[in-house]
């Protein structure tokens, strides 16, 4: 058990030193690479704390999506605004004010951390009541799935997940509205191309596997969607421009698929005289899989759009044909 304790200490030290170093430097690229390492260690921490569902999402997003997103952005001249500093207040005679401000904010942040730590200590000292966790395990049998996290996401707290998908849709619409997508990558050369050739099918298979296995083991729509989006990131980095993401109406349908499938199921149940999203236990498994499949497509479409950084435009050749 001592070995485990030392491992915990090293893990926590790695997290804190990586975060500090990532935030202390003014070199954008260095900061992003350190942040990627931070994400990787974080995935290990989720595994260590018995949260494999969270670890799966963190692995797919931290290693695949957010790293590629940030690295591409800091190397891109079109993102110069990220690196430029906003005009600081300390121009003339304002230096004192600036120092005072910095100290005040720092002290307030420390106070906040202390307060939170105190609250945590109080919470841990009392024996956990666990009423929510107990309610979940008591009702797991009628939820249609046997993985408690999926049961919470798609059944007990399905309202929350519906709204979460709406938040994702809003982010996608925001990215859509801000302009056209980045032009894409040059072909990465034969080595990475050869890798992508079997990596992409493997990732798509893994996404399908995670979606299916989510009913009874860690996995589900969010992890599967993130893995599917990672497949698209690999394709884009290998020089494929559109990565199979549809344009126009088909894309719109994919983006709203999660929310609309959720609403359709919920309203359909209302018509049948059930509460909104109150699945009959016999159908619950099938309905959850249906919603999850649509949600996976919507999440993947949103995350791919996020990597594109804007509205995808049809490939030049196609545009000429249609116009």
């Amino acid at each position, binding site marked *: 058990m001592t070995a485990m304790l030392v491992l915990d200490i090293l893990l926590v030290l790695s997290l804190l030193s990586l975060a500090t170093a990532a935030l202390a430097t003014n070199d954008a690229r260095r900061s992003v690479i350190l942040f990627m390492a931070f994400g990787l260690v974080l995935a290990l921490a989720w595994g260590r704390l018995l949260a494999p569902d969270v670890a799966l999402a963190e692995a797919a997003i931290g290693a695949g999506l957010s790293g590629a997103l940030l690295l591409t952005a800091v190397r891109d001249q079109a993102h110069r605004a990220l690196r430029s500093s906003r005009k600081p207040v300390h121009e003339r005679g304002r230096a004192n004010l600036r120092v005072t401000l910095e100290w005040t904010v720092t002290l307030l942040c420390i106070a906040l951390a202390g307060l939170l730590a105190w609250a945590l200590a109080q919470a841990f000292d009392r024996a956990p009541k666990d009423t929510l966790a107990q309610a979940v395990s008591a009702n797991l049998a009628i939820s249609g799935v046997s993985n408690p996290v999926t049961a919470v996401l798609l059944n007990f707290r399905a309202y929350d997940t519906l709204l979460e998908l709406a938040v994702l849709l809003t982010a996608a619409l925001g990215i859509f509205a801000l302009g056209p997508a980045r032009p894409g990558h040059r072909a*990465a*050369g034969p*080595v*990475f191309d*050869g*890798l992508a050739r*079997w*990596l992409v099918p*493997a990732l798509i298979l893994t996404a399908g596997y995670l979606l299916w296995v989510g009913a009874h083991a860690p996995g589900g729509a969010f992890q599967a969607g993130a893995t599917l989006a990672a497949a698209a990131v690999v394709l884009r980095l290998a020089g494929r421009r559109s990565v199979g993401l549809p344009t126009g109406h088909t894309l719109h349908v994919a983006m709203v698929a999660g929310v609309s499938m959720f609403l359709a199921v919920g309203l359909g149940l209302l018509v049948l005289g059930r509460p909104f999203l109150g699945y009959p236990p016999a159908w619950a498994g099938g309905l959850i899989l249906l919603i999850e499949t649509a949600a996976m497509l919507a999440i993947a479409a949103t995350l791919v759009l996020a990597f594109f950084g804007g509205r995808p435009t049809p490939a030049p050749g196609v545009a000429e044909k249609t116009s």
Partner: protein
Amino acid sequence: MIEVMASLLTVSGVGFYLAGSIGLLRLPDLYSRLHALTKADNLGLGLLIAGLALHTQDLLIALKLVLIWLAVLAASAASAHLIAQHARRRETQS
């Protein structure tokens, strides 16, 4: 007997990992570090996975473990190539 083999493989795998990271820390420049890394971490993971596969004795899990090893092998080879190419290009440019 299998237990002993599994333990031996696991421990030697960890040994290769440690050798790899010490090499990464101690060797003088990028190219020699590349060399230390790509050999040590592939062999390290390979031995570790062989040990764990013997230990689980579940065919499906063992297959998944081998798949993981192949994925890391391919990824590590490809990124070592990309990093070296990038470094070389920068050198010839400047």
